[in-house]
């Protein structure tokens, strides 16, 4: 088990005053709150800060933590010395939030008190609905077009029969309906935590995210595709094959098409209700002048077309 340096996590000195610790916590909690900060490690940082604050804000826990000594380094292998907490009295155990998410390090120091705290709360006749769980699921764009079944492995902390916190993994097979969009959620009733007493189970919310696709980009229910075209297709117009997540379609390129604009294939986006559109963004590409024939063709254009793309720049 790794030693955790709660002072470093909070960015305060070991002799910081309580109000200084509170200020540091408020600032870090706002910074790393997973609803505010979308970085991948934000949630872990937020929990770490919450755990550190839980110890440092409580004078009893802080004193007990302090007497482990200042010579420990974060990440160093740690086992609590025998009877390390002798002489300290704990009133609360876990106070705020979901204490079940705290680290093994915290557990080894304050776990016993937590058990007592929980026992007190589970009185006969006490009913509460179980907690809702939230998780993200990353799907392929194709799954939104066709629907799919996804296996999702979730780990959640639970209390076992002895009141110990254990991490349990479970795998669920979930149907991803056709037409889902990024950020939408699927609610699985009764797949959250168990309730207490007569309280029902909580729900599981799965938030949809798309894996990056090599050539499609997704914006809401619309899909964008950069489509390379030749100069003659752009200049003369053409009917060309365009890939879509539903399979290739034929599309007319009008004569005089410029690169960078967008052409809409109505209803070929994500099949939500109403369906999104597919936008094709033409990118004009030039064939290489790597043979005598190709060079001759470019030279002929130069002579025949007298084209100056920089005329509006005054040169």
């Amino acid at each position, binding site marked *: 088990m790794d030693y955790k340096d709660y002072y470093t996590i909070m960015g305060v000195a070991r002799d910081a005053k309580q109000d200084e610790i509170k200020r540091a916590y408020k600032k870090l909690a706002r910074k790393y*709150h997973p609803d505010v900060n979308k970085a991948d490690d934000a949630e872990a940082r937020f929990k770490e800060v919450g755990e550190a604050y839980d110890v440092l804000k409580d004078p009893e826990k802080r004193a007990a933590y302090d007497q482990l000594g200042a010579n420990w380094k974060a990440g160093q292998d740690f086992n609590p010395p025998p009877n390390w907490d002798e002489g300290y009295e704990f009133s609360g155990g876990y106070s705020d939030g979901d204490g079940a998410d705290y680290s093994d390090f915290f557990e080894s120091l304050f776990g016993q008190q937590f058990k007592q705290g929980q026992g007190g709360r589970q009185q006969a006749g006490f009913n509460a609905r179980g907690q809702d769980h939230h998780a993200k699921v990353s799907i392929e764009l194709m799954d939104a077009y066709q629907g799919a*079944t996804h296996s999702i492995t979730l780990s959640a902390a639970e209390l076992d029969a002895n009141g110990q916190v254990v991490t349990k993994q479970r795998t*669920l097979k979930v149907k991803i309906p056709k*037409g*889902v969009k990024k950020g939408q*959620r699927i609610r699985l009733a009764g797949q959250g935590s168990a309730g207490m007493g007569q309280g029902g189970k909580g729900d599981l919310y799965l938030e949809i995210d798309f894996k990056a696709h090599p050539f499609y980009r997704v914006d809401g229910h619309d899909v964008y595709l*950069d489509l390379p075209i030749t100069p003659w297709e752009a200049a003369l117009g053409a009917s060309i094959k365009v890939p879509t997540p539903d399979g290739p379609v034929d599309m007319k390129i009008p004569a005089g098409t410029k690169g960078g604009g967008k052409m809409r294939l109505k209803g070929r986006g994500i099949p939500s209700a109403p369906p999104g559109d597919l936008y094709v963004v033409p990118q004009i590409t030039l064939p290489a002048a790597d043979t005598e024939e190709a060079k001759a063709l470019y030279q002929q254009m130069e002579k025949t077309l007298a084209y100056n793309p920089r005329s509006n720049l005054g040169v």
Partner: protein
Amino acid sequence: MNDKILNGLLLDETTVLSLDEVCQACSSSNEWVIELVQEGVLEPRGQQQTHWQFSARCLQKAHTAMRLQRDLDINLSGIALALDLLDEIDSLKSRLLLLEQTAK
């Protein structure tokens, strides 16, 4: 592993939730959700409270509001402001992403 395939409820544009359903999904009191409506955080359809219809987006906002209040101790006007700003950041980020990809 359980082989049963779970069919969840997709919370999309067609989802309609009543006041009671939103309260239940947030494990909150009616009063708290009504306050969110008065603050302009949630905008249900329907004039009378008994006929309010909440969208999936409303439920998502209510969940975020609940977490912000619990974790950061923010009052309702602060939550309303934070949610508006988070929405704006989201739309700016997705526009930026599209522009960056197009510029490549």
